[in-house]
């Protein structure tokens, strides 16, 4: 447990100290959402209709931006070898790194989303649902992303390979996350969507550390 917390704390303090990671992700998220009214026009009805989808897609892309850093630095400087030899099973090491990644990127994304929701004129009920859906869904983004980040280690043009691997896997959280906000906007109740989104996150929590650890072992060979 001490080893798990140690790794979590170290990754988090590295992410926060370098500052770039969280700042870049939030900056990209805000800019991507702000661009849409320029493209589709400023009519409130249009923006209300597509707002939740825009924010969710922007959050996916922003999370994607930071994924290549998840294992790459440890892989390049040899610390991944040492992690694999430590007393902490590699599956738990992946989990600790994902948790730190979520606190440094997913959580700030969820916290920023209500302000962006105001920009696209969502009603207060939808804003609360959007916040809840991102809070529930972003852990799945970090966990699913870790599998792709581990698989693409050492690939040339890692960022591109990573995007191609991970974006199709992000479809389920996107459908149920954006669907929840839509359901809440038309008043049909977002509960079912949020429950399925929770199931997606829990399934990712159960499966992704195993898959990532297997891919990391392969990368170390």
């Amino acid at each position, binding site marked *: 447990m*001490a*080893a798990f917390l*140690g*790794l979590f704390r*170290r990754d988090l*303090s*590295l992410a926060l*100290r*370098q500052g770039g990671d969280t700042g870049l992700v939030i900056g990209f998220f805000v800019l991507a959402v702000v661009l849409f009214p320029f493209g589709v026009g400023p009519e409130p009805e249009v923006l209300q209709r597509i707002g939740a989808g825009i924010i969710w897609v922007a959050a996916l892309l922003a999370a994607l931006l930071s994924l290549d850093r998840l294992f790459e*630095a*440890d892989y*390049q*400087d*040899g*610390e991944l*070898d*040492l*992690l*694999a*030899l*430590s*007393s*902490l099973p590699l599956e738990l090491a992946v989990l600790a790194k994902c948790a730190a990644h979520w606190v440094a990127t997913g959580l700030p994304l969820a916290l920023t989303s209500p302000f962006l929701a105001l920009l696209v004129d969502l009603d207060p009920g939808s804003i609360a649902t959007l916040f809840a859906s991102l809070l529930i869904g972003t852990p799945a983004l970090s966990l699913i992303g870790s599998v792709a980040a581990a698989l693409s280690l050492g690939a040339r043009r890692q960022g591109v390979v990573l995007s191609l691997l991970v974006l199709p896997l992000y479809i389920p959280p996107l459908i149920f996350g954006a669907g929840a906000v839509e359901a809440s906007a038309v008043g049909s109740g977002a509960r079912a969507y949020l429950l399925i989104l929770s199931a997606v996150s829990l399934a990712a929590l159960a499966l992704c550390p195993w898959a990532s650890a297997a891919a990391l072992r392969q990368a*170390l*060979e």
Partner: protein
Amino acid sequence: MTRPDLVAEGLACRRGERLVFAGLSFRLPAGGALLLTGANGSGKTSLLRVLATLIMPAGGRLLWGMAPVEAESAAYRAQLDFVGHQDGVKPGLTPRETLAFWAALRGTESSRTPYLLDAALAAFALDRVADWPCRWLSAGQRRRVALARLIAAPASIWLLDEPASALDHENQSRLEQAIAEHRASGGRVVVASHTPIDIGAATTITLDAFAPLSDHAAAG
């Protein structure tokens, strides 16, 4: 505590299509040392990674006492301290933080950590830079941070890949001193080096001698 020998029987290693070495056997008792030499590409790093269980051997067996290491991999890995040819030092952390993190990750008792950290920093003369971010350190200083892990997270088998690279003469003596003390207390070391290094009485394995003949034919 029993001190089983580390025994290799007919080890072979394959990287991609190429057989790097084959038929390699040795016995490493407590307090013993192996010095791996050989030309570039002869498999020094590969052998160290096989010993660290990071690569599966393509043939032969590695035994810890009587049991194959795969059967006891967690117990065996807990005996290892591996310093690869990369330093594994994060620019954003200080040497003290780096060492404290690895000590925690290796499961060192937290009550012993402060004492071990001071000993590790002193052994490689890092006291002065202990609280600087590692991005300010020179290549030799980073190397010493990597080596100081050996003291901060003690283990009985040291696997060192070119440990003296980037070290000046004085710091190489500090490394040799640390190895001598480790061996005196029953620890064992495996050192791959192409530069002369004094690790005391050691079995020298020249890896060129274990290169498969077919490979020479193919290369020639």
